[in-house]
């Protein structure tokens, strides 16, 4: 009890405590940060020609030849440079999609859950309906038919077809919070609805949103690279981890020249596993805070 009295239950403190105790999560978050910084800083030093210029003479060089650490691909392009740029692109897309989905989903879920009524009824029927649609197929079709397609088109398409589950999750938790007396107390204290939604209820969902964000980030890396892998992700001149792995669809490359696609696959594996480790620690924090509130 004495211990509890000293530390406030702010999210930051709870997170710090959890990560101090959990060696695995600590390791994961440090490695993840280092890797991300390395990728984004490294990508600044990769000239655009490194992944656009074709050099047939250097085709399929094995690793560690002529200064190509991971070798080269069918166009003689340096795999290491490609990997850094591809990772940056994939992470950027996953980041933006995650942020946009969270913004849409959180605002939508909070507002519809808080006000309820006919709007909520119609809106949730709509969401229910959208969640059953074959999202992957629709994304692929949209990617191929949209004019002036670029990275931002992909981000918007992925966002617009990916926020339905977040709305549901946030709405469900909002419904629980709305029925707590502190919301009623805020109403009788003269606080406006918007302030109640964003200043009173929202902080109580913060840990849930953080857990959701990490898992969604990993999921979005997966979705974008899946699309790029199939050839429907990033435009041709913008490398993605998925396009690198796409080399493996050729049996010859898959078995004979694994250096072309394995690094990208390992990068995705590494990122997903690290995020998952962090996510586990975050979930524990969220569960504690759930029981506490």
């Amino acid at each position: 009890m004495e211990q509890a009295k000293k530390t406030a239950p702010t999210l930051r403190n709870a997170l710090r405590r959890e990560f101090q105790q959990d060696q695995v999560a600590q390791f994961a978050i440090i490695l993840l940060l280092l890797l991300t910084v390395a990728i984004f800083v490294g990508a600044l030093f990769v000239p655009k020609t490194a992944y656009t210029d074709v050099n047939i003479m250097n085709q399929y060089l094995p690793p560690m030849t002529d200064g190509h650490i991971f070798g080269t691909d069918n166009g003689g392009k340096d795999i290491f440079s490609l990997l850094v740029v591809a990772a940056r692109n994939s992470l950027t897309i996953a980041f933006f999609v995650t942020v946009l989905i969270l913004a849409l989903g959180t605002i939508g879920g909070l507002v519809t859950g808080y006000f309820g009524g006919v709007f909520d009824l119609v809106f949730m029927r709509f969401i229910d309906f959208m969640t059953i649609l074959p999202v992957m197929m629709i994304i692929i079709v949209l990617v191929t038919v949209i004019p002036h397609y670029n990275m931002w088109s992909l981000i918007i398409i992925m966002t617009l077809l990916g926020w339905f589950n977040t709305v549901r999750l946030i709405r469900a938790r909002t419904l629980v919070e709305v029925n707590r007396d502190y919301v009623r107390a805020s109403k009788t204290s003269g606080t406006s609805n918007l302030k109640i939604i964003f200043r009173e209820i929202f902080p109580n969902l913060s840990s849930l949103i953080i857990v959701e964000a990490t898992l969604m980030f990993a999921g979005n890396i997966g979705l974008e690279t899946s699309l790029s892998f199939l050839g429907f992700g990033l435009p041709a001149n913008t490398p993605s981890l998925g396009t690198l792995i796409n080399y493996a669809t050729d049996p010859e490359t898959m078995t004979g020249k694994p250096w072309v696609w394995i690094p990208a696959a390992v990068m995705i594996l590494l990122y997903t596993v690290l995020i998952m480790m962090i996510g586990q620690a975050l979930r524990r924090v969220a569960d504690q805070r759930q029981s506490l509130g």
Partner: protein
Amino acid sequence: MWKTILRRLLIMIPQLFIVSVLVFFLAKLMPGDPFSGKFGPNTDPAQIAALRKAAGLDDPWTVQYARWIGNAVHGNFGDSFQLKQPVARVIGARLGNTVWLSLLALIGTYVTAITMALVAARRENSRTDHALVVYNSLIYSLPAYLFYLFGIFIFGYTLGWFPTSGTVSADANGFFPVLGSRLYHMILPALIVALISTTSTFSYLRSGILDESKQDYVKLARAKGVPENRIFSRHVLRNAFLPIASTMGYAITGIFGGMIIAETIFSFPGIGSLFVQSVLTRDYPVVTTLVLFNGVLAVLGGLFSDIIMSAVDPRIRIS
């Protein structure tokens, strides 16, 4: 229960309508029309315009939609640009492959997931339990295509245990060799799909069993001396299976949708790989039909789930 089902069926009608309208507009977004590829660059533009008018492409969209949906109901989806055959026939030729593969994968998923959940829940917090939980969150987080690639890389090419493409080997003759060969071609993709699709079933069932085991009625049964196995099979499992039953419809459509990537990597001629090829070759009639097909399937899957739920849950069944 019949009221619930009837109401659910009524809800389905607007759902199907919206799906078809969505797909119709998606199709309108796609470039090209039934005459694409039939004309050379020297064809008179006036002649094309006349043909387009005759085909009704200048009609208002409501008329076009009505004609399109009317044809679709009669199984007429137009001709494939690439194969110059009716779309229905193109899809029909490959549908069977996907259905069998999905069925095999679905059975595999349920067998693995249920086994894992039973093992894990029986010994909560044991090392086995933790390992299974971690496994299931890993396969949920990692993108599926990595598993297919490493699977085909290791078991297909490196070890050579399974074929890496197609549905049947050319030298198989007679009923049983063909059947055997077909199964042999499906085992690796089905197995991998099954092994990486267990997460939701596993976690629903595991937490369901754990929740139910802590209920008072279980304590009562134990207190009055009902044997542990009987408590487990008669009381706990029966209730823990309820939520799983209700997700079955969605699971079917989910697996079907997941086949897009699996079939592409395994060069398996089903409708998933057909979809990817059709998009890449801009064969829009096939693309449109496949999206419509999957959309309708998803609606039916939702219906199926709700009907199962109303059939097994007494709270819905009785009211």
